[in-house]
């Protein structure tokens, strides 16, 4: 392995077992090796597998849990740190926004037991609502941000983060990106080391953030930043790799480092293991040792600005974009533009027009019928975050807005109070409702908003791959847990009009939505059907289109079901429809919307033509 493995400071074992791990699995391993005692997270792509992996380590070693949202997860980790134990919270970049209130205050308090937050950014927005840069949060809160560049470093830096957290009395962030989180590469494994026991530190001046205590803590935070900068001047995770050529040098960090090495194998590179705080002396010495300085970093020019502030003419964002995910091609193009690399000969590329294949709701997805009914209700629809956000696309097109976790209900209140001429509806999944929807619903009742909230209860956190939550009756480790009773919860909040409907009964869904809209005040419709993928894959007997009867109205194609596709035969020039028997789960929605009742159970039709 590369120099990084020395960085963790642990003794190298003679015969370390090497295993291919994803970045997420490596972070989990690093936390386990560091002796973590409590870990909590709310699932979010690309960070979800960190806690899933941790839950595979023995329960005697650590407590691992899904929390209701990222703020609760961080508060749980902070609590464990107060209690003197090493603790981890894991989340995606936008999860840190949810946890930001606790995060910013805890930055003053610091840590007792090592306190680490693993945050996974999503440059390129593979599965998120934005591509914010977590390193700025490190700067904002004045806490260190470690940026591993491969899975080995993900393990090593996580171990180091716990040490730094305790040594410098701070939260430490391990920042990854989608690429690292989901790339497998070889990792040398170490043994678990139990951290030395620390008791609760009874020090209100440090742990209770009233103004009188917070003011001196701010001073302590700045002193901590100075010490961290000093540490990072010589820390082995920041390393200079001088090449023969001094005409230019590259400063980079994290997942950009392998791209730089791919494109410029022999270049002089300052590879930063920590992108915050930045060691001024080290930066200055490197900049002085080369003629031109390039900074290669994804998203925001965090390092570039700092280098410029030191008075060096760093070149970065004019060659390497501030948007999207980097790749060897993008890094190469930047260096070509900067005249560092000669442009490659243009290859005659043959590019067939790519097929449009956006992700779709699964065959039999209960959200499909919910949004058919929502769409037919003619309402203004505030959407939320989950698989069902896909219903904003054709053909369902059943959603007008989506902002952030739990926003739908508040947005609906605002639309209604602003006097939207249509009936106003909020649609929100079960996990999202528990995460951040409940305060919005209380607000709606309290302020007597005339809205309908559709709670899309598919009994799981589906979008991230099927994680349990407080409404599923199971914990992260699969143990039985109490289940939230949504009807009782909603009534306790003060909602008078609540109805639960089977999502697959389209007529009942539609009728219930009509009645809910007619109710003045807050109404809640719970659309109830389990996800077809998790926790168990649902497969029922498939349906078949009676081809001779099909009038090609394609009413069923309004569902956007992936099991429905065009048949070769046509009627009035339009394709008839057929059903892919391997995908169809028999939910019957297409049969419910068929205008001439020609979709039947396969066994009743006899031999299928296809």
């Amino acid at each position, binding site marked *: 392995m590369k120099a990084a493995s020395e960085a963790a400071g642990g003794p190298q074992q003679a015969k370390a077992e090497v295993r291919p791990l994803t970045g997420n699995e490596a972070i989990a391993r690093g936390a386990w090796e560091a002796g973590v005692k409590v870990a909590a997270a709310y699932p979010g792509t690309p960070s979800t597998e960190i806690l899933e992996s941790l839950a595979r380590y023995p329960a005697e070693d650590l407590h691992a849990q899904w929390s209701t949202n990222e703020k609760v997860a961080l508060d749980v980790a902070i609590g464990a740190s107060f209690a003197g134990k090493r603790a981890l919270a894991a989340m995606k970049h936008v999860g840190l926004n949810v946890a930001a209130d606790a995060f910013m205050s805890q930055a003053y308090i610091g840590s007792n037991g090592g306190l680490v937050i693993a945050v996974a950014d999503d440059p390129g927005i593979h599965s998120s609502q934005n591509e914010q840069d977590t390193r700025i949060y490190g700067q904002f809160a004045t806490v260190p941000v470690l940026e591993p560049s491969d899975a080995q470093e993900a393990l090593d830096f996580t171990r180091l983060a716990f040490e730094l957290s305790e040594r410098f009395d701070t939260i430490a962030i391990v920042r990854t990106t989608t690429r690292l989180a989901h790339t497998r590469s*070889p990792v040398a494994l170490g043994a678990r080391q139990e951290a030395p026991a620390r008791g609760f530190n009874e020090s209100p001046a440090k742990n209770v953030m009233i103004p009188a205590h917070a003011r001196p803590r701010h001073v302590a935070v700045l002193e901590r930043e100075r010490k961290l900068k000093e540490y990072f001047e010589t820390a082995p995770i920041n390393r200079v790799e001088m090449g023969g050529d001094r005409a230019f040098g590259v400063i980079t960090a994290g997942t950009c480092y392998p*791209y730089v090495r791919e494109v410029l194998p022999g270049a002089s590179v300052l590879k930063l293991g920590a992108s915050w705080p930045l060691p001024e002396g080290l930066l200055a010495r490197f900049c002085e040792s080369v003629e031109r300085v390039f900074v290669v970093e994804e998203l925001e020019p965090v390092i570039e600005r700092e280098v410029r502030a030191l008075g060096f003419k760093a070149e970065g964002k004019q060659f390497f974009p501030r948007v999207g995910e980097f790749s060897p091609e993008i890094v190469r193009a930047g260096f070509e533009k900067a005249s560092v690399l000669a442009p490659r000969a243009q290859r005659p590329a043959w590019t067939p027009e790519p097929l449009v294949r956006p992700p779709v709701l699964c065959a039999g997805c209960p959200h499909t019928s919910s949004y058919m009914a929502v769409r037919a209700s003619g309402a203004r629809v505030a959407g939320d975050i989950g698989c069902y956000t896909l219903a904003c696309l054709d053909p369902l097109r059943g959603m007008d807005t989506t902002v952030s976790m739990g926003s739908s209900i508040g947005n609906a209140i605002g639309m209604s109070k602003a006097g939207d001429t249509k009936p106003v509806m909020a649609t929100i999944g079960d996990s999202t409702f528990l995460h951040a929807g409940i305060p919005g619903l209380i607000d709606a009742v309290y302020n007597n908003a005339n809205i309908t909230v559709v709670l899309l209860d598919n009994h799981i956190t589906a979008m991230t791959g099927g994680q349990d939550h407080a409404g599923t009756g199971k914990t992260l480790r699969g143990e039985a847990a109490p289940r939230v009773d949504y009807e009782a919860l909603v009534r306790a909040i003060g909602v008078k009009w609540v109805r639960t409907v089977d999502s697959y009964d389209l007529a009942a869904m539609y009728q219930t939505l009509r009645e809910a809209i007619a109710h003045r005040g807050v109404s809640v419709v719970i659309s109830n059907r389990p996800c077809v993928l998790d926790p168990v894959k649902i497969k029922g007997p498939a349906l078949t289109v009676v081809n001779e009867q099909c009038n090609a109205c394609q009413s069923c194609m309004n569902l956007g079901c992936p099991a429905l596709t065009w048949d070769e035969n046509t009627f009035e020039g339009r394709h008839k429809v057929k059903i892919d028997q391997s995908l169809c789960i028999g939910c019957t929605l297409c049969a419910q919307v068929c205008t001439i009742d020609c979709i039947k159970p396969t066994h009743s039709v006899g031999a299928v033509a296809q």
Partner: protein
Amino acid sequence: MSEPVNVLIVGVGGQGVIMVSKALAWLAQSRGLEVKQSEVHGMAKRGGSVFSHVRFGEQVWSPTIPRGEADILVALEWAEGLRWLPFLKPEAGIFICDTKRIVPPFACLNRRPGAPMRYSRETPAEVKAHVAEGYAIDATQMAEELGNERAANVILLGALSTALDFPPEDWEKAVAEFVPKKTVAVNLEAFRRGRAWIEEARLLAPTAEAPAAIAPARVSPPGPAPAYAPRLEIVREWCKSCDICVKLCPERCLRLDAERIAELADPAKCTGCRLCEWLCPDFAIRVHLDAVAPQGAAA
């Protein structure tokens, strides 16, 4: 230091792209090579396109394969294979593609008479002309013959195995390691058939051209030409303003007028699909398909 070997494996969510790439990565690692395997699977379960980069060698830097540098492109679905063609080495890349077509709902949204399916139209022969070495296998059909449609991905793994320098026994160990325990036997058979298929294809065409290797794909023919234009007849007296037609029109081209009677607001969008006619509880809507070309009207 030698360049790493770059294998790009692509397909649609649920086809087993990740399983195939994990098996390859495991095999390369067991031979003592440095391996990086990178995937983006946030949307994998939802029928989106899935891809996995596998790179191995003495030293591997970038986890992703740069455009134009894949040695081998293995595609579990036809259009996904075409999507990633620009990543293949133009002068030496090997293209191994299942002719299986998974048509997304998006490809079937145009209701105009004669509208084509929006699925890739390139034929295997056209694709072959643009790659150094190409194989279009009907692996799904072969897997169905074995009695397990899901073994198609291992047939492709068998095909891939002929292009890389690992012994077949080790490949079979990798297959056994990663497929569900109950399906090991059928998958090992699938692996051998995939291998044999490629070897036979090479035998038939010993040159790098390998013309016989390209089997005909099942590409949909364009539909019949549009012959009529839609016209809506709405009987005002019969309409009771229920607005079912307005809410369920797929093109959203209907509305209620000032007197709350259905009207065609955007005639250019109307495809004449008759859904409003079928759904109207009061028979107030009739869709006429007026001939626009005399020769088409007879149909």
